[in-house]
């Protein structure tokens, strides 16, 4: 029974978005079905939470009928939309010819990586489907909010503790982070609505979908970037086997994995847009980056990093760096002059308490280069960065925009832990890895792009080599 209910929830989540992505992604796009599948899962989950917010505003209770009804409206709008609302198909390209021996090795590697991925989905799915809620922050606020939303059949306003006391708790709720976005609790609420009752383990099914979506987006966008299937699947397996990423799926309830997906989905689309200037990739990039703002405050800062990439992609590397550098100086001036109490994306300068905190360096070093959070991806990234700088002249035209995004994001990350009061999150190793998780799939994708660019990713049959 639960399986059917979850399947229905999945269909209602995916169909409204799928029908529009079918129009958006041109025919002839490499790995089109997988690409649409990955983005459908992500954007479908986001759309469901938007529908639930809308229903709360108009005073309609959550139910499969009400949520499914609005979703069906979006779906039929996509079905009935004019035929001209469809991206022009791309010209078909002949598949590269591989010699038999190389093809055999590629098939073997592909099969091994696919089997490892399937095994990972299975074991994580088992954990999600079986274990009741475990993770601290999920118990503390995310899932606790979901309980209230599920009980109320709508979202409910959350305020700070003292405000709640002043209002006598009438019509408002409180927790330690009332300003946090409600997308994550709404995902659990939706799953429970679909199941018909509160289910302490199956309600985290969306985390498995996020994991699968990460894999589909990573692989498909790598293929669109003209990376061969074997390299793409190997890199996808490496990205999805990151231990800390697996933990966030197996012990679900946190928002960071969804932020990671939104950032990767936007980043990969941005890279392919910067290469081919296809409008549909730009649209995917903007949509996914904006979705990050709905998931967690950090989404705002990752959204801003796309500005640096866009500058370099639009103006060229030299002019882009000049303009970007000027804007950065301007931003620093604004930060210097603006009042301490202004709140931007949930933080004010006063609250951040800016100042150099070198004690966080040890935690950063241990987390990335000693502990097994990311296997040895950090080392591979550093090597890729070195390769990028070594071959800057050849690689910069293609990779400078995405390098700017990655480096801006990492710079913001380091600023958070080295220059603000949040350094305690590094020293005590509490939030350090959770925020890093939001960036690591993008770091993995960038590392893949550098490897593919440096290796030129050519696999030619001997006849074609003459």
């Amino acid at each position, binding site marked *: 029974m639960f399986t059917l209910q979850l399947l229905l929830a999945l269909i209602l989540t995916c169909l409204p978005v799928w029908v529009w992505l079918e129009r958006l992604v041109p025919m002839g796009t490499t790995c089109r079905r997988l690409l649409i599948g990955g983005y459908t899962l992500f954007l479908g989950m986001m759309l469901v939470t938007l529908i639930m917010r809308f229903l709360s505003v108009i005073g309609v209770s959550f139910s499969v009928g009400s949520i499914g009804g609005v979703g069906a409206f979006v779906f039929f709008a996509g079905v009935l939309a004019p035929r001209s609302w469809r991206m022009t198909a791309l010209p078909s390209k002949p598949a590269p010819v591989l010699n038999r021996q190389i093809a055999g090795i590629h098939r073997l*590697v592909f099969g*091994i*990586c696919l089997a*490892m991925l399937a*095994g*990972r989905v299975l*074991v994580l799915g*088992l*954990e999600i489907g*079986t*274990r*009741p809620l*475990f*993770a*601290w922050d999920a*118990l*503390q606020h995310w*899932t*606790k909010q979901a*309980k209230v939303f599920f009980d*109320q059949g709508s979202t409910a306003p959350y305020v700070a*503790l003292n405000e*709640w*006391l002043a209002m*006598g*708790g009438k019509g408002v709720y*409180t927790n*330690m982070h009332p300003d946090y976005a409600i997308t994550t609790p709404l995902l659990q609420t939706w799953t429970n609505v679909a199941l018909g*009752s*509160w*289910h*302490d*383990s199956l309600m985290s099914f969306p985390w498995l979908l996020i994991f699968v979506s990460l894999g589909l987006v990573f692989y498909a966008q790598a293929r669109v970037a003209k990376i061969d299937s074997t*390299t793409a699947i*190997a890199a996808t397996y*490496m990205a999805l*086997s990151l*231990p*800390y990423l*697996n933990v*966030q799926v*197996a*012990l679900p309830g946190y928002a960071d994995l969804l932020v990671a997906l939104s950032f990767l989905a936007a980043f990969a689309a941005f890279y392919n847009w910067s290469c081919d200037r296809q409008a549909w990739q730009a649209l995917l990039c903007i949509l996914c980056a904006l979705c990050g703002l709905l998931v967690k405050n950090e989404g705002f800062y990752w959204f801003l990093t796309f500005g640096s990439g866009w500058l370099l992609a639009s103006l060229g590397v030299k002019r882009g760096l000049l303009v970007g550098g000027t804007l950065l100086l301007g931003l620093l001036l604004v930060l210097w002059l603006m009042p301490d109490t202004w709140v931007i994306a949930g933080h004010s300068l006063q609250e951040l308490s800016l100042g150099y905190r070198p004690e966080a360096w040890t935690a950063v070093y241990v987390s990335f*280069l*000693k*502990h*097994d*959070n990311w*296997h*040895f991806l950090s080392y591979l990234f550093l090597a890729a960065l070195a390769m990028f700088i070594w071959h800057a002249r050849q690689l910069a035209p293609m990779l400078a925009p995405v390098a700017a995004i990655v480096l801006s994001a990492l710079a913001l990350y380091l600023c958070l832990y080295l220059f603000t009061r949040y350094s305690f999150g590094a020293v005590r*190793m509490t*939030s*350090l*890895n*959770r925020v890093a998780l939001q960036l690591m799939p993008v770091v993995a994708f960038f590392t893949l792009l550098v*490897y593919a660019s*440096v*290796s*030129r990713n050519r*696999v030619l049959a001997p006849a074609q080599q003459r």
Partner: protein
Amino acid sequence: MLQLGITFSADASSTQWLPDHFKLETGTVVSAGGSNALKPNNAGVLTLTFPVAGQSLDNQHLLRLSFEGPSPQRFLIFWQSDTIAGKLFHVEVAAPAPGTSTLDLAEFTGWEGNAEILGIEFRLLPGQQLKLSNVSLSSLSLSDVLKNYWYHWAGNRYWHNIEINRVTGTVDADAGPYPVPFFAGLTALALALLVFFRAVRRDKGAFNWQVAGGVILCIWILSDSFWQLRLWRQAGVTWDTFGGKTTQEKLLVSAHANFVGFTQQAKDHIQNSDARIFIASAGDYTGMVSAYFMAPFNTYWHRGGPELPAGDSLVSGDYILVVAPSAVKVDLDSGTLRYAGEVGLKVSIEYDSASGTLLKVM
């Protein structure tokens, strides 16, 4: 010496002592039927020392002993080295089981320098005897090192709260040796060898990036295999604990079982679904979990702050769930709350259990 978080000496020297070498400091030898068993003194103490010839304790830190007989009540090791003249170090460790036991003394304070005195002490019950056949001191062999790595990287470790913050890759979250630097080093070495072999080849073609990528993938799979092993072991335990159970049954066998029961009872005693519930607990974990299981009631819980807000914030009809440990007490005679020096808020006890108490503000 190869330093990878543990000491592995390229010079695998060792010292072995047989019964003929033992010097009995306390206790006696029981020679019956050719067997040289050892008997403690009347206080149950059996002490032996071994002839040492200035062995380097930095090198030889693995103590192995083989004995038959009962497991001792207590087991101590003592030694003196040339590092601190005249200072005799003692350390008590977990009593070894009969058979062969191995103990790594490298981490103990004072185990350094050249040995001057070395001995062991068994504390036995009156009348007990044991037969000690072999004592040796050695450095770690390659198989010891590999076993140590295997233990740290593939040992059983199951979900713990700390995992949501970091994954170290070791069985003890706070100790190495950590696998990541090892596999990163192995990858660098493998790639360096690739570059070297290309350099010595006569026909220098383009560097084969596919082979390099294949090498990186193979080492990644090797590194990931430990994590996979752990995930599958964990999944097995998860299934054994929770598989096939309903939501309620799962909660009752989970780590939060205590909270599930008493919060459900507390909720059953609250008639007004709009009531405010104040969670009063001095413990972060207890307060947090209680607040979660009291949801969807409208709860107030202040992490890291006072257990309760100022007295005039609480009004008649509010509930207080007191969860141990807590400084909030009830004066049973006067039916008033006692907390942070404030006395006077009249409350009634709605539900009381070993885990917590539900109070209603009158």
